[in-house]
């Protein structure tokens, strides 16, 4: 055996900070943030609209999604096929993103094509035709998409979980794209009205990131600066609230695995416990050798992977242990999970805290090295009302987390005896073992969430 070198030490990381944007304001009040990123040949443009999903009428939820998806199906100047052809000829990609706190239209385009692509992008957002036929088609496609989701174990679990952990009247309890009953009610008139009432320059931000061929402000002013909407209505984002604890088993007869969600209502990034909870959740279910994954995957071989995630919203949020386990071991996996997530006798250690801090600190430069990575984060911060230097601040706060603070924050949010459980799998084989494992009040349901007897 030849000599082997000892394991090398890690040299200290160079100082890194999140890029600082240049700011500008278009003549109609749109705020601009420009991130100059050398070497990033694909420009990422995000137009962030302060339109929370609770702006939708309760009976037509899904209207924001249909509206956003129909934006690039033709404009007042160019019909559908022509518009798409113009955009794709520029090598541009157009997309939309809908979250509870707001809407985004997103453009990716090689830097040399930015000017022309931005004009087309602005057309789609400010003067889409939203034609009857296109709206109706997108309604049908959304309904088909829901059917796809209801055939997918993991998606069924996520949908049922949000329905349980958020108080049922709140928008957060229902799918962002709307549920079948309300999507069916979305008409072309409703979509036109939604665009007319909510799309406008007030409260809107344009984020541009990349290696620009020329200063992009003039082009942005030409494309978006003259957009006006005197009828634009601003809606205050609704705060979600916690639902009542439930234990739901959704039946997929014959399924070889079960998807599990075990969790509850959580906290947001502005909560003073956020950095401590980030550390705790990484140690519990974020790292490869997290407490959960080390046992359930690496020791037991029960799963391809199990995680604990905290999903922050603008206010409040959610958290869950989630994974997919073969049917035979689901009850045992849950019993082990409940033990592991109870930290009273096993507080987080300084090693766990150090590892978490090193991980979050180390991955940041890579995560924010590209145009879309930076623009995406800047947009997230706007929608969550976080400061411009949020990433730097949060990394500094992370470094001050102590093991006690991590344990304390975790215990204040995660009460293992009060968690909501959603399991999607073969109910005939799962119901009794789950009841015997300490989930006696199981409700058994079908994938479209109708109650069933078992």
């Amino acid at each position, binding site marked *: 055996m030849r000599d*082997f070198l000892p*394991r*090398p*030490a*890690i*040299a*200290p*990381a160079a100082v*890194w900070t999140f890029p600082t944007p240049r700011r500008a304001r278009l003549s109609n009040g749109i705020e601009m943030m420009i991130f100059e*990123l050398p*070497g*990033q*040949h*694909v420009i990422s443009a995000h137009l962030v609209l302060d339109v929370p999903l609770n702006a939708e009428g309760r009976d037509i939820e899904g209207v924001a999604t249909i509206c956003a998806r129909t934006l*690039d199906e033709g404009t007042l100047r160019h019909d*559908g*096929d022509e518009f*798409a*052809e113009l955009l*794709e*000829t*520029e*090598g541009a*990609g157009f997309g939309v993103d809908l979250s509870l706190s707001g809407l985004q239209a997103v453009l*990716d*385009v*090689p830097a*040399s*094509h930015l*000017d022309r692509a931005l004009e087309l992008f602005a057309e789609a957002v400010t003067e889409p035709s939203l034609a009857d036929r296109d709206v109706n*088609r997108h309604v*049908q*496609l959304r309904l*088909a998409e829901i059917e*796809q989701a209801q055939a*997918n*174990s993991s998606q069924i679990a996520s949908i049922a979980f949000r329905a349980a952990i958020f108080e049922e009247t709140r928008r957060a309890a229902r799918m962002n794209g709307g549920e079948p009953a309300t999507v069916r009610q979305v008409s072309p008139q409703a979509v036109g009205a939604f665009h007319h009432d909510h799309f406008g320059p007030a409260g809107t931000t344009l984020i541009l990131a990349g290696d620009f061929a020329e200063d992009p402000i003039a082009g942005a002013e030409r494309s978006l600066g003259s957009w006006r909407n005197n009828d634009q209505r601003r809606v205050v984002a609704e705060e979600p609230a916690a639902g009542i604890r439930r234990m739901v088993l959704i039946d997929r007869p014959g*399924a*070889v*695995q079960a998807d599990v969600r075990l969790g509850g209502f959580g906290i947001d990034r502005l909560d003073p416990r956020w950095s401590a909870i980030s550390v705790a959740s990484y140690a519990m279910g974020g*790292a*490869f050798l997290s407490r959960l994954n*080390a046992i359930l995957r690496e020791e*037991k*071989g*029960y799963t*391809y992977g199990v995680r604990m995630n905290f999903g922050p919203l603008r206010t409040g949020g959610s958290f869950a242990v989630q994974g*997919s386990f*073969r049917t035979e071991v689901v009850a045992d996996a849950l019993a082990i999970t409940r033990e592991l997530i109870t930290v009273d006798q096993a507080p987080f250690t300084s090693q766990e805290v*150090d*590892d978490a801090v*090193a*991980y979050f600190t*180390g*991955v940041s*430069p*890579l995560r924010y*090295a*590209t*145009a879309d990575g930076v623009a995406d984060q800047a947009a997230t911060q706007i929608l969550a009302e976080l400061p411009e230097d949020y990433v730097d601040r949060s990394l500094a706060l992370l470094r001050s987390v102590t093991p006690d603070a991590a344990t304390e924050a975790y215990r204040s949010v995660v009460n293992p005896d009060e968690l909501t459980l959603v399991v999607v799998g073969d109910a005939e084989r799962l119901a009794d073992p789950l009841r015997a494992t300490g989930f006696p009040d199981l409700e058994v349901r079908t994938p479209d969430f109708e109650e069933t007897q078992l």
Partner: protein
Amino acid sequence: MWGMTSGAPTQLGYPIVQYTLANGLRVISSPDHLAPSVAVNIWYDVGSRDEEEGRTGFAHLFEHVMFQGSGHVASGQHIALLQAAGAVVNATTWFDRTNYFETLPTGGLDLALWLEADRMSTLLDALTQENLDNQREVVKEEKRQRYDNVPYGDVMELLNALTFPADHPYGHTTIGSMEDLDAATLEDIHAFFRLHYVPNNAVLSIVGDVEPDDAFERAETYFGQLTPGAPPTKPEAGPLGPLSGTPRTETSGKVPAPALYLSWRLPALGGRNFDAVDLAFSILGHGQTSRLHKQLIRRTEHAESAGASTMGLIGGNSFGFSYARARDGISPEQLEEETVELIDQLLTDGPTEDELRRAKAQFERHWLHELARVDSRADALGEYATLHGDPYLINSRIADITAIDKDEVQTAMREWFRPEQRAALIYRQERS
């Protein structure tokens, strides 16, 4: 302007330097100091095409074993140590390769290289039956989660079987079968490691905040002592011609909509004819202006989704496919008829100049995106060095694609992408 693009194609000039160690390990360096991070990426020239009969899924199972410890690293510690250095770590297995990669702050580069070298040389010292059995279960869970428990999860397997003979290197999928996974033994792992996991069968790419001389010196330090193996022979798979006799399969399952899948045998990666036929697939089925989208989604509204793309492979042939999911009341046969008609039109008239320009513009953005991050750039370098023997090609891909004209697309289609050269898979809804 109508039909005109507003800028010239982007000229790329990523710096690329190569160096081969005495043991045959090829090292590629591409410095980029914009962020204090470095990507380490190893391509081993082994994939599911190298698997033996009765051992499908083995290359992928082996990939999992690579994280179970080595001579100086405890089980699971490879990822744990790297994550604690701020790294994003993973590995993937595909038909033509297995790649292992981590991206981390520059100060962890030595650790990453040390860990990779340790498992390249001493993996077998740490391997136990218990570790193998555990990862076999994990891989079976992965198969259940990603294939067996999702709608349409068996499509890839069925298309492979339709497109290539069962004993062909591409005749089975990378995930393999449960029976073969169960049959894998410790001896198999030993033999596989000795044959394929040798420095002269790998490419190490180091991209990011480190200069070439420095990168090569570190590679020499950690990998220089490793002994080479006999160069593995690649599976014999002479190029097959296009499919004939339009083979068909029907299946049914708990799926939300009936669906149609068509597949073609295509030329191998690396020639202009592959690039040309790839553009034809893009024109048929990529994006909102593709012929499939315009016809099936927008005009007839017979499909809820539709598309076409190629899967480039190096061993004699590649693979191309199209799909469409039916709206209510539409049969897969109807979708097949409409798809065939669209291909016929494209074949007869050729693409329009505008279509070709769009397909090239979309390729350009996709390629620039691919190279925008140090980790995916490192992976592209590994791919081009391993499969094509030339990492410098990443800088000329856009020019290569731009140079292909309409006639070449039509010629490639006539040879490889005719409707009668298809295989068809009809997916029906199981009625309960």
